[in-house]
């Protein structure tokens, strides 16, 4: 498998994947920290390195509408946004998945206003968690690159749109080593563009179809149940595509990534760029002989219920790190997902939730260590808590 390692930022790596995949249409509206990504890609378009028609729309709502039109037409389509842009898109996200269109959306994770923040957290992506979009989280530029290539195939096999997440600035603007596949390998992997990739292309004028009809109470339920059943098939499709991808890249991606969990009594769970730091925290504690481990959620939607339940079978305590708050008296979105996933485990671990990294607040090893300590002491009853959820980094 011919590859080369080069230094790229997350945005550069994503732009490179977009170039190699050679999407037919990219309808985009700039917003930090995604702007740079589109700038890089626009260069490829300007230099004729891709056949993509880049539609510079007037806003994210229209961006997704144009993507829906182009995808329904039969084209291979991508867009990208962040934070408030994702929020503006939400109405159309539900329409895209309801119409079962294989669109790819890059979410360069950014906090939601107010107060306005251009920096990273997962609040924007959490707006999409119930939209029946497949959602992949990337820890670094390498994973962003790999996830993007896989996302095209996943979307077209599942006939559901896919969101590829990577953290704003932390990943999007930092240089790292990235192993790049050669163009031919990538293009063979995703396969050629063709309107008949989808069952009902609008542009097949010999077979006119109607997209976006109005369903009355007598049919809406059936439409949604079909969507529900098909979305559960996504697990197998993601697994299948990951295996195919391993064949060309040598790298296999599971729904979750486990780190030192085999004998771990206390486990921390996080998504995105903070996982590396969390692993270092685990190393530090392991060196003191503490039995701790860490888990990264890579496939966020559909949620890896079974894998997580198994991975947490023998843990005494679990702390979930949410990069977004739900303001609901329960805990962060990821915390609730994890709690639901392990609900039927025989010996359920003690659960705690920390909100961290909001609006770009940097997170370091010590803070994760403090969090794991707190978990252990809570579990042992040495300390007590008022709520299931606590802020890890708020100045007191």
């Amino acid at each position: 498998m011919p590859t080369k390692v080069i230094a790229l930022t997350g945005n550069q790596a994503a732009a490179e994947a977009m170039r190699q995949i050679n999407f037919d249409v990219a309808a985009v509206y700039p917003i930090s920290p995604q702007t740079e990504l589109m700038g890089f890609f626009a260069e490829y378009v300007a230099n004729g390195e891709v056949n993509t028609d880049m539609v510079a729309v007037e806003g994210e709502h229209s961006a997704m509408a144009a993507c829906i039109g182009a995808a329904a037409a039969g084209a291979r389509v991508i867009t990208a946004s962040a934070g408030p842009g994702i929020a503006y898109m939400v109405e159309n996200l539900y329409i895209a998945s309801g119409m079962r269109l294989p669109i790819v959306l890059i979410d360069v994770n950014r906090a939601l206003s107010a107060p306005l923040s251009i920096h990273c957290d997962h609040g924007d992506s959490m707006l999409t968690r119930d939209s029946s979009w497949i959602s992949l989280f990337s820890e670094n530029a390498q994973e962003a690159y790999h996830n993007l290539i896989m996302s095209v195939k996943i979307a077209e096999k599942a006939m559901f749109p896919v969101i590829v997440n990577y953290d704003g600035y932390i990943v999007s603007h930092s240089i790292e080593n990235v192993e790049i596949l050669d163009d031919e390998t990538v293009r063979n992997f995703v396969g050629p563009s063709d309107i008949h990739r989808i069952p009902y292309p609008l542009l097949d004028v010999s077979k006119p179809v109607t997209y976006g009809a109005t369903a009355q109470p007598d049919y809406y339920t059936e439409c949604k149940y079909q969507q529900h059943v098909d979305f559960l098939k996504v697990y197998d499709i993601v697994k299948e595509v990951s295996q195919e991808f391993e064949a060309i890249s040598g790298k296999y991606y599971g729904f979750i990534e486990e780190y030192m969990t085999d004998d771990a009594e206390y486990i921390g769970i996080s998504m995105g760029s903070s996982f590396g730091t969390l692993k270092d925290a685990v190393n530090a504690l392991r060196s003191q002989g503490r039995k701790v481990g860490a888990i990264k959620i890579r496939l966020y939607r559909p949620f890896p219920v079974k894998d997580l339940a198994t991975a947490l079978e023998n843990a005494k305590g679990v702390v979930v790190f949410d990069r977004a708050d739900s303001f609901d008296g329960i805990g962060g979105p990821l915390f609730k997902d994890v709690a639901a996933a392990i609900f039927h485990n025989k010996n359920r671990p003690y659960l705690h939730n920390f909100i961290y990294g909001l609006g770009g607040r940097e997170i370091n090893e010590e803070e994760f260590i403090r969090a794991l300590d707190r978990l252990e002491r809570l579990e042992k009853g040495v300390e007590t808590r008022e709520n299931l959820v606590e802020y890890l980094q708020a100045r007191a």
Partner: protein
Amino acid sequence: MYELKKWFEIPIGSIVPETGSSMMNNTGSWRMLRPVLNTEKCTNCLICWIFCPDDSIPVNKEQRFETDFYYCKGCGICAVECPYDALEMVPEMEIKLKELE
């Protein structure tokens, strides 16, 4: 009225992969007035056809045929717009009652 399909019988994405299937719907049931055509007066100018909101007037290049009462909602635009007064709106019920006898 029609047999409702099951969830696994419908195409994905609530897409309708066919054309003009609304022709199943008997919108003639809305009709309270019926356009009665006087073929003596009709010159087949086709004006009624272009203004008919419900495509209920079968025509070809030369001729206008009898209104399709399965769809005609009885709006009366054809009667108003006919330059030759070839159409008269008659209460549907009078006709239905006659049919009853």
